[in-house]
């Protein structure tokens, strides 16, 4: 791992590929003193976290309630994934870099080692003059349990946009937090959401005021660094009437032999005529080729189109993690509201993915669209699980689902599990599904034109994912394309 540490920089993909089998580009570990809670979960730990963050009484009470509910819940077993029992008493629920004890007052005060870590990841936390033609991206960086810095805040503040860490939002904007926290994903929604509600450490908070079109991409970058810690961040995005925001989320973690738990919650609220685009490039460490180590990514993400004509669109590129369990969903409550889910989920080696979406049609004339591209290679397992449900009052609901699986090799598995439930006769629901393999003839054709087998697979898979890649903001699309190639390395021989 230390070998990785010294060589990683803003390498080109080719250099990464030459990396002697260690394909994971972000596997370095940073040497940073951390402030950790003792392992284990109890009411005391919940109080400890809340106290560390100097939280108001109402939030502590909210957490404690979540903890109580969690204690009575069972881990979900219905997903198509297998992993050893997690010992929740052997995890650390809070780790923060020591230098953040009192919280940085500004980016200038952030530990330079931390800034370097983010630079290695390709995320500058220094506000740079951007090249002409490149859009600005404001970043909130979350390192282990805390947010270490948010860029371009002043510029955003001029428009009335709030973009800060969750902890800060609790202090500065308690009314907004109180009003919307848990309003999309109730604290006892499911086992991991309840766990997160009890112990969440930090995350990002966004509020776009009425009528404002956010002038730049907002983004959060998550990084798990500490060994043996879970990461439980919480993101809350609120787009007020007639506003628009595009939000990006990226994640990496060091290569470790133990598994690490990541149980995040993301809540989106879109009010009348508002639009939220939420994109994720998930590249948590997937474990090695034998399935040792890697992140358990058990995430709850849901958006609420709360009022008329609200629009929410999820785009995800899932390439990392040992086990992924995640279903970014939309509640289409407002009349004429719409939800979209575009997904690329890649599994290689022994990775397991169970991912998909739920589109819950409650309002009239609501529409949803699901485009899912699952790619399985190695001995991995990749399931699409999707639910489209139309409630009795949701007249004229529309859904289109396209669900494509691509298999590389013959030891992997793909599953498609669609649930469709229409309780209103006017609903029009379309579902298309395909399963294909990369053919030897296609590979040979590419190789005859000079591409090596890995380039050929990357090209073919990128083509397969085109409909989804096109939906990503430009800044992410290029990275995502490279990631598709890197994550499938070694899948053909």
């Amino acid at each position, binding site marked *: 791992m230390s070998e990785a540490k010294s060589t990683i920089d803003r390498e080109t993909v080719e250099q990464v590929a030459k990396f002697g089998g260690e394909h994971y580009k972000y596997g370095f570990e940073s040497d940073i003193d951390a402030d950790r809670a003792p392992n284990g979960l109890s009411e005391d730990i919940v109080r400890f976290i809340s106290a560390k963050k100097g939280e108001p009484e109402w939030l502590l009470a909210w957490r404690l309630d979540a903890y109580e509910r969690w204690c009575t819940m069972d881990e979900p077993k219905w997903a198509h994934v297998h992993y050893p029992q997690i010992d929740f008493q052997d995890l650390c629920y809070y780790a923060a870099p020591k230098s953040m004890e009192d919280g940085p007052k500004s980016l200038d005060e952030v530990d330079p080692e931390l800034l370097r870590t983010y630079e290695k990841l390709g995320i500058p936390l220094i506000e740079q003059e951007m090249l002409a033609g490149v859009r600005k991206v404001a970043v909130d960086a979350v390192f282990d349990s805390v947010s270490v810095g948010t860029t371009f805040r002043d510029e955003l503040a001029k428009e009335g946009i709030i973009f800060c860490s969750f902890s800060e939002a609790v202090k500065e904007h308690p009314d907004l937090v109180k009003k919307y926290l848990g309003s999309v994903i109730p604290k006892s929604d499911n086992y991991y959401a309840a766990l997160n509600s009890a112990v969440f450490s930090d995350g990002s908070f966004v509020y776009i005021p009425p009528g404002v079109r956010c002038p730049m991409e907002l983004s959060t970058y998550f990084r798990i660094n500490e060994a043996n810690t879970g990461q439980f961040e919480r993101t809350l995005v609120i787009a007020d009437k007639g506003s628009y925001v595009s939000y990006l989320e990226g994640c990496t973690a060091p290569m470790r032999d133990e598994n690490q738990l990541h149980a995040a919650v993301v809540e989106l609220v879109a009010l009348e005529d508002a639009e939220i685009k939420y994109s994720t490039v998930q590249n948590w460490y997937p474990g090695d080729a034998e399935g040792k180590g890697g992140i358990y990514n058990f995430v709850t993400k849901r958006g609420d189109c709360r009022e008329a004509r609200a629009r929410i669109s999820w785009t995800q590129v899932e390439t990392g993690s040992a086990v992924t369990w995640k279903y970014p969903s939309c509640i289409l409550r407002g009349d004429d509201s719409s939800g979209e889910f575009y997904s690329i989920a890649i599994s290689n080696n022994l990775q397991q993915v169970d991912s998909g979406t739920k589109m819950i049609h409650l309002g009239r004339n609501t529409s949803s669209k699901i485009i899912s591209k699952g790619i399985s290679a190695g001995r991995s397992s990749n399931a699409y699980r999707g639910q489209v449900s139309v409630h009795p009052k949701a007249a004229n609901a529309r859904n289109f689902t396209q669900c494509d699986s691509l298999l590389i090799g013959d030891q992997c598995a793909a599953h498609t599990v669609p649930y469709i439930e229409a309780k209103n006769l006017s609903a029009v629901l379309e579902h298309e599904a395909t399963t294909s393999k990369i053919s030897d*003839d*296609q590979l040979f054709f590419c190789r*005859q*034109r*000079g*591409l090596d087998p890995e*380039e050929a697979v990357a*090209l073919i898979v990128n083509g397969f994912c085109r409909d989804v890649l096109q939906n990503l903001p430009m800044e992410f699309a290029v990275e995502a394309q490279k990631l598709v190639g890197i994550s499938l390395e070694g899948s053909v021989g």
Partner: protein
Amino acid sequence: MSALLEISNLQAGIGDKAILKGLDLTIQAGEVHAIMGPNGSGKSTLSYVLSGKDGYDITGGSMQFDGHDLADLQAEERAIAGLFLAFQYPLEIPGVTNMTFLKTALNAVRRGRGEDEMDAASFLRLAREKSRALGMDDDMLKRQLNVGFSGGEKKRNEILQMAMLEPKLAILDETDSGLDIDALKIVAEGVNAQRSPERGMLVITHYQRLLDFIKPDVVHVMANGRIVRSGGPELALELEKSGYADYRGNEAAHA
């Protein structure tokens, strides 16, 4: 001067089935050779074995290409060394535009040849120029590779790839099949434009018709996995009259 391609006593097959049974063929730079022969005689197999497709067992003989022993090279290394195959049945790659494919291939080949990758602007200029020369719409470059292309468009697209990659030896496997006379003329013009003293071509065809437009220096007849006769362009005309009946008999005798 050593030959561009020298195949001697090549024997190859799939599993238990022998397909090439002692084939000899020599092509000098600058020459255009045609191989004709009945269906099933092993013409496509020869093109695949030369270009390094997996799945064939080479059981004897040798293939020398421009100073390389082809058996030592992977398929992509052969492409980089300058061997190009225009496929009898070009493959579709959904979601990948013609442009992206051409650019990826060109840059892979250039990298392999130790040249710099071509920048986006120069590439675009080159691709437009070459595709227009083949009478292709600019629109064709934006379409997904061979997806929904007509037979003629697919074949023309193969010639476009050849024009972009500038191989030393181009093997054209039944590039004429399925083309109407106008499409055939355009493809032949494209091929003729690429004839040069440095480049060799191996034109595989079932019909004499293509050879009216691409004049070969040497014509071979292949039957039952061997070259059974070689001659000048007149041999093609003779076959046109007499057909392959004689050679089919030959094949049956061996079967």
